[in-house]
């Protein structure tokens, strides 16, 4: 019996995904668990695995199509069964099944109207709908790595002309330097990577529409560092705990008591998530990804640590799976490795809060009226004021502090 494969929903707020590449061709056999296609969501490119075995009988969407979540993308069946497209996907399905042959890329992108945020330009045939540019402008932009979306056209109907591209390419002449001994480096223009563009869009939207407030606390990291040192002294090199493992676990346990901070705002409702999935921000070469420690409150520290290690490694290799990056309900962003005291982070929608962690610092502290050498760590919570308030967030920080400063509780 043929089954319809739909565009999966890979996150709370995913409305549509772009099918980047069919890994399995039409009429190619696929085993359950094998990668069927690559899909680009707002956050990353992910591989979608087939949920069952069979033969990919029909690709319902062409590569590079933007498809709403839940819309049919393929028909899986046996090699010889008859496929009644209309019965399977109805007349409301794709107007033009790709069964016969894939159409030209231009036609494919044209099949899905692009929204105002649909801005990834990729070569000639994949310009967003509505963008007008002359062939020479397109060629120059392509050759010089300039995103045509960043330009406004001066031609008829806003058409981007060669002169517009040239104007954008001309860097302002460098001002004469007093230190003329060394010539200034040439100004470079680097096209936004997809990841960079996505981060920019999401962060702008978050900062513009979410009323952030910030609470900073200075924590005693001494016990945590001591416990970690103790544990790691008995652990093999490839299983060492990171400071972050403890911080993620602490955050997850603290969130159990504050469901408002493990939440999303949807319209007039606050969605308090059943699972506590901690997103961990991972710095990449060209941006940052948030990988997810699922049900971090439920897992022993060692399991949590091992899982995070694997997911982070996959993220750095660019091989993330949907489950690796989707579904986080709260994020921990740790820049402690960079010797900085504290920072404030932008909330990663649709989450309600994010914790920014600074470095562990050795400094004089007063204990029982005596100055001694202590280890301190400053954390800053950014929270969405539409969902929670200062007092609640401060109470969360108190609980968080108790876990971090008494880390043995993380082990029991």
């Amino acid at each position, binding site marked *: 019996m043929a089954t319809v494969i739909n565009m999966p929903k890979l996150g709370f707020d995913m409305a549509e995904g772009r099918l980047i590449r069919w890994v399995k061709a039409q009429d190619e056999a696929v085993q359950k668990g094998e990668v069927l296609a690559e899909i680009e969501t707002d956050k990353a490119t992910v591989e979608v695995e087939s949920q069952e075995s069979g033969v990919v009988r029909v690709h319902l969407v062409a590569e590079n199509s933007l498809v709403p979540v839940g819309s049919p993308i393929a028909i899986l069946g046996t090699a010889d069964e008859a496929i009644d497209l209309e019965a399977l996907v109805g007349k409301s399905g794709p107007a033009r099944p790709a069964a016969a042959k894939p159409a030209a890329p231009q036609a494919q992108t044209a099949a899905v109207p692009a929204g105002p945020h649909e801005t990834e330009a990729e070569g000639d045939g994949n310009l967003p709908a509505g963008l007008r540019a002359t062939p*020479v402008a397109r*060629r120059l932009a392509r050759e010089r790595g300039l995103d045509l979306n960043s330009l406004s056209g001066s031609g008829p109907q806003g058409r981007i002309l060669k002169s517009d591209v040239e104007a954008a390419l001309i860097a302002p002449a460098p001002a004469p330097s007093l230190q003329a001994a060394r010539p200034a480096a040439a100004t470079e223009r680097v096209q936004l990577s997809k990841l960079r563009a996505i981060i920019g869009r999401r962060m702008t939207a978050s900062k513009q529409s979410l009323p952030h407030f910030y609470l900073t606390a200075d924590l005693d990291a001494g016990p945590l560092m001591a416990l970690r040192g103790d544990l790691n002294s008995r652990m093999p090199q490839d299983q060492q705990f990171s400071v972050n493992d403890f911080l993620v676990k602490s955050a997850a346990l603290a969130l159990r008591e504050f469901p408002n901070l493990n939440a999303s705002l949807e319209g007039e409702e606050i969605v308090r998530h059943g699972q506590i999935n901690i997103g961990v921000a991972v710095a990449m070469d060209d941006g940052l990804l948030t990988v997810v420690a699922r049900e971090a409150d439920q897992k022993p520290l060692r399991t949590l640590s091992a899982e995070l290690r694997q997911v982070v490694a996959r993220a750095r290799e660019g091989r993330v799976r949907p489950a690796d990056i989707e579904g986080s309900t709260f994020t921990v962003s740790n820049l402690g490795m960079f010797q900085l005291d504290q920072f404030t982070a932008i909330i990663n929608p649709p989450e309600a809060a994010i914790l920014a962690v600074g470095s562990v610092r050795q400094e004089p502290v007063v204990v029982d009226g005596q100055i001694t050498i202590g280890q301190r760590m400053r954390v800053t919570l950014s929270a969405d004021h539409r969902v929670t308030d200062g007092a609640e967030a401060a109470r969360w920080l108190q609980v968080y502090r108790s876990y971090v400063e008494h880390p043995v509780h993380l082990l029991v």
Partner: protein
Amino acid sequence: MAVITMREAISQALWEEMERDERVIILGEEVGVWGGTYAVTKGFYDHFGPERVRDTPIAESVIVGAANGAAMAGLRPVAELMTINFAFLAMDQIVNHAAKLRYMFGGQMSVPVVIRAVSGGGRQLGATHSQTPDAIFAHFPGLKVVAPGTPHDAKGLLKAAIRGEDPVLFIEHATLYQFRGEVPDQEYLEPIGVSKVQRPGSDVTVVAYSKTLQHSLQAAEQLAQEGIQIEIVDLRSLRPLDMGPVLESFKRTNRAVIVEEGWRSYGVGAEVAARIAEEAFDYLDAPIRRVAQAEVPLPYNQALEQMALPQVDDIVSAVREVL
């Protein structure tokens, strides 16, 4: 360098080639005793005699047919058609015989004939005597179609046409005979099938030939006063069509206007525009514009005739449109 008229340039070319090669003969209506309808062969009959300068009946198929035969037999005939409109009467002789005999007989003979024909409107000669059907003839492989726009090119190209082994339709514009230009004192030839930049510029490539070259040069002067520098590429021959200088220019300017006196549909502009799109698509920065004759039989009324023909102002506005 001497400054002479187009008429003198063509006449000099014929004279020099007849002096140089006794196989060169002239035949046509009133070319002998009368000296030619456009006075191109004035004095030839007395100098070269009735054997080499032959008046024919008013029968274009005979003029071209006899010239074809003479060419196949070893002479270098130059046939004159009073107007290119009458070439329709010799269509079979031009496109089926001259253009194809060498091909169809496996190269056993060539047809080194030159057919001079007067083309173009603007002299109130009515719809049937004022056409500019150059593109029709350029359609046929086997026939070279040459249409100079300056005395210099007219002289050099006609001499090359007479010396060449292939049939050439040599198109002279009716209103250019009085047009003056510099011509070298020493002998020279201009290669057939080589386009030429007649005015350098950087903003728009204007492709023209024959009479429209002169219109374009005037338009260039007007536009230069506004700071617009057009580059004019003169095709000079419609077949073979040399797109090299056109493409080279277009790749710098990214904009093109093509000017022809014939009708726009299926015309020279259509061909050149298509070649640009095919070979330099990635250099396009504006739609290619064609300036051509209004799609009507050319009116007799002087005002209407001038309105129907492409004028300097039309070129100026087309250039502004693509900028």
